[in-house]
């Protein structure tokens, strides 16, 4: 059973921002909202500078789902965390809860009024008809329904950013680390998909009302 995850190889990321551009272009993300961004640590320090591409990691035990006061989040059968923008009230709790700073809020009017939350959808659209104009306008492209992977991962020139089934991309990364003999640390994986609390059962996809 596929369980969709992102993996960023800090040894390979060259901070080209190709993933950011691909995401903005593919989903026509509004001005001021960045679903994906590249973070650089130890900037300018020779040998210690690392860049990481960060977006929603679609956590196994997503804190945004836990704190949402209107319960607009759901997890699909393939492990993608999505939300219903018709329910979102733009409170910003998810932004405070997210360890990756993934939720973004477009400015909806004067005086800094926040709009409905926007975040990476793993290019899986949202709760509208797949491939419809309504889905594209609210959530962006639904590439998974077309048998494709997220545009950011497919566009990555150095293949630093891997996206897809956790088992498959972990195998790719493992072989890569074995060949180069270093850089086995995967930033964010422990936080997003870590072991969690002892004895806890892995989260199951939520049964959605009205589905067969």
């Amino acid at each position, binding site marked *: 059973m*596929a369980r969709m995850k992102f993996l960023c190889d800090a040894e390979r990321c060259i901070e080209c921002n190709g993933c950011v551009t691909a995401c903005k272009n593919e989903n026509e993300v509004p001005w001021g909202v960045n679903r994906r961004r590249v973070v650089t640590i130890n900037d300018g320090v020779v040998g210690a500078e690392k860049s990481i591409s960060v977006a929603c990691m679609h956590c196994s035990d997503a804190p945004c789902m836990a704190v949402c006061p209107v*319960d607009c989040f759901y997890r699909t*059968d393939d492990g993608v965390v999505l939300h219903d923008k018709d329910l979102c009230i733009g409170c910003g709790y998810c932004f405070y809860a997210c360890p990756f700073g993934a939720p973004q809020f477009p400015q909806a009017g004067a005086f800094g009024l926040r709009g409905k939350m926007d975040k990476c959808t793993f290019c899986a659209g949202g709760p509208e008809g*797949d491939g419809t104009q309504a889905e594209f306008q609210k959530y962006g492209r639904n590439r998974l329904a*077309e048998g494709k*992977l997220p545009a950011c991962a*497919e566009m990555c020139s150095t293949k630093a950013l891997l996206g*897809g089934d956790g088992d498959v991309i972990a195998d790719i990364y493992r072989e890569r680390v074995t060949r180069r003999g270093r850089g086995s640390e995967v930033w964010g994986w422990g936080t997003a998909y870590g072991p969690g609390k002892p004895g806890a059962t892995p989260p199951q996809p*939520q049964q959605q*009302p009205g589905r067969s």
Partner: protein
Amino acid sequence: MRAVILIIAALGLAACGEAEQVVVYKQGKYQGKPDTRSWDNAPPGAELRGSAWTKGNRESWEEAIKTRQLAQHEHKRIYQ
């Protein structure tokens, strides 16, 4: 005549009922609209490129996605 009066009264009283206009809140449950699954869509361009997966078949969709994922593996991508 009595039946007509009863029907009119029933229809008139129907306006007194107040339909729920807010989401019925259930703690911890997703409240939004249902979503369709990725594999419930027909593969695009099937008539030109052949069908990558069978509509509604999760296993075949996962197999198609896995094939696509392996394109991220440079060694397999180059040598296959």
